[in-house]
């Protein structure tokens, strides 16, 4: 009998090539049509749209990194990550606007935050007797009390403090809600994550606000910017430069941490195989706590930049969930478990939302794609999961028989 080529082999379609080359080609055709044929837009408009897409994509990337790191290690879609992002945004808002707090509140919050800092340091150092742990807790208490009872922080300082508090929150969430469920079915863990997300949403509604909140830290970065290029004038704001640069710095720092430090290497080892890593002497719980710490810090940075970008924060129940799920989609699109994948996915999603909608503006009867842009992430997520579940750069994590 001759060699039979299987149907499966014949059916294998090179989706990567088709999509990778086809979509840019279609975009170029569309731009050519709009600029040269219809004359509705000039090239500068698309340059501006691309810059803004980059800006939004960076934000998604920052959030997506948290998803991808946690998923890589404990295979949990951390549903609460979007809410952690929300808490980061609101914490920074409170730090640069509402302070000073009345004494009891300032003391209460700083005591709890300092406790959290001690908690994280204890996880890292392994003992409460370690002088660093006690000193860290004490310094944190004094520093927080000082910050919360004086007024008006600079946005960058607010961002760093918000990153710290949110990072602690992430670790505490892991310890309280997720760690008791290590080894339980993944679905139980996911349900817990949903519950945590719901808890944070409603706590946010009580503690922060129930309304849309203006977010104006008084920095010149949000100022309007216009500059001329050969093909016209680009209208944008200075954030177009700030946000991608901050993102790049944070991603570079994360990459250095993951590749160069002991803990980072332990992290990668745990992502490969947590059980084996544990047998090789890696303290997996510490690694997971670090993962939550870093992921939540990045999300908080994303929250601050998000506020700067949009100039206002949505109410807590809405702010976290949609960017969170979109960033998760970005992580899956890029390849979940992979850090570069999260960045690529985030930027791709940013382009899809901002750039592709710019290609189909509202004209006459046609309402434009803008009102559907929230659904793009889900649609792309479903398509990617069905065609290539491992994402653009990721590896296959499906179950072995």
């Amino acid at each position, binding site marked *: *009998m001759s*060699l*039979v*080529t*299987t*149907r*499966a*082999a014949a059916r294998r379609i090179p989706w990567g090539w088709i999509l990778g080359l086809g979509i840019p080609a279609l975009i170029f055709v569309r731009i050519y049509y709009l600029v040269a044929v219809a004359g509705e837009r000039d090239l500068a408009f698309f340059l501006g749209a691309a810059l803004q897409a980059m800006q939004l994509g960076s934000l998604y990337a920052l959030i997506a990194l948290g998803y991808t790191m946690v998923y890589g290690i404990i295979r949990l879609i951390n549903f609460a990550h979007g809410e952690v992002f929300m808490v980061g945004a609101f914490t920074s808002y409170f730090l640069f606007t509402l302070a000073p707090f009345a004494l009891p509140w300032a003391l209460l919050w700083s005591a709890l935050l300092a406790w959290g800092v001690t908690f994280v340091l204890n996880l890292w150092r392994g003992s409460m007797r370690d002088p660093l742990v006690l000193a860290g807790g004490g310094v944190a208490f004094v520093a927080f009390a000082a910050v919360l009872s004086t007024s008006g922080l600079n946005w960058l300082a607010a961002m760093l403090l918000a990153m710290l508090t949110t990072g602690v929150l992430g670790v505490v969430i892991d310890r309280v809600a997720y760690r008791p469920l290590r080894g339980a079915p993944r679905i139980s863990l996911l349900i817990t994550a949903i519950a945590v997300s719901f808890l944070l949403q409603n706590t946010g509604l009580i503690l922060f606000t129930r309304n849309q909140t203006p977010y104006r830290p008084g920095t010149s970065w949000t100022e309007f910017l216009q500059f001329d290029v050969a093909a016209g004038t680009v209208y944008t704001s200075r954030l177009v430069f700030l946000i991608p640069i901050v993102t790049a710095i944070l991603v570079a720092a994360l990459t250095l941490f993951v590749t160069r430090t002991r803990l980072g290497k332990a992290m990668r080892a745990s992502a490969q195989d947590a059980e084996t890593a544990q047998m090789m002497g890696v303290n997996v719980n510490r690694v997971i706590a670090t993962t939550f710490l870093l992921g939540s810090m990045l999300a908080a940075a994303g929250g601050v930049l998000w506020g700067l970008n949009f100039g206002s924060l949505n109410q807590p129940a809405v702010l976290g969930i949609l960017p969170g799920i979109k960033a998760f989609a970005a992580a899956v699109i890029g390849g979940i478990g992979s850090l570069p994948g999260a960045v690529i996915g985030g930027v791709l999603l940013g382009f899809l939302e901002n750039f592709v909608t710019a290609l189909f503006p509202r004209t006459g009867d046609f309402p434009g794609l803008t009102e559907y842009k929230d659904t793009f992430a889900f649609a792309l997520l479903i398509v990617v999961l069905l065609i290539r579940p491992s994402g653009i750069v990721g590896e296959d994590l499906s179950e072995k*028989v």
Partner: protein
Amino acid sequence: MSMLSVRDVSKSFGGLQATHQLSFDVEPGEIVSVIGPNGAGKTTLFNLITGVYTPDEGDIQLEGTSLVGRSPDQVVGAGIARTFQNLRLFTNLSVLENVLIPQHRRRHVPWWQAVLRTRSYREAERVMHERALEALSFFGPRLMSFRLHQPVYVLSYANRRRTEMARAMATGAKMLLLDEPSAGMNPKETKEITQIIRRMRDEGGYTILLVEHKMNLVGEISDRVIVLDYGRKIAEGAYEDVVNDPAVLEAYLGKRSDDASEEGAA
């Protein structure tokens, strides 16, 4: 026509060639054993036959119809059922339910009839119960009586293996693929399972392809033995001939002492 014919089947995962140009036939009513060192591609072969993986090239036919491209449940429908090396029972369901589930495919009534408990549904249910008890009684009274309604997770390891074999038989398949049926069993139970496999063929009329590490079991029941190493077939024939084949001795029996410790990693 042979029951199962595997023709030039190759499958690779990334750079790893799990099976390479593998060809063999299984005649109706035969018991054929596949042996080989760990990582030789035995379980991959089972996964290819049962549709869990699709071969990169080659063809697999059951009584002349190709199985390539069918999903695992369609392969069961075509007439091949399997057991798993590391037990995949429905642990929270009872023994009886475990053996009823595989019959669902063949005795299917629309769901609304099931809800309304129509006559045809009740009839199907009765037949399913009969068949289930028949399959379970193959293993003696062990899984009968009060065990029927016990959830699987309370069963001993050996009883779980038996339940899994009964479950495979209840699919109504013509051919059974047993992946290490005696793994984790003691000598007495191994002997018993050896007899049961033979009875499955003699009384049940099944054609059996099995992967096994215990050479005495293989030697006792196999009509034919196929030896795999690194995804290639290195020998085929009667047990006595195969075990004296120098290639097999080198590839397989030379590593015999490893087997006990590495079993289950294949």
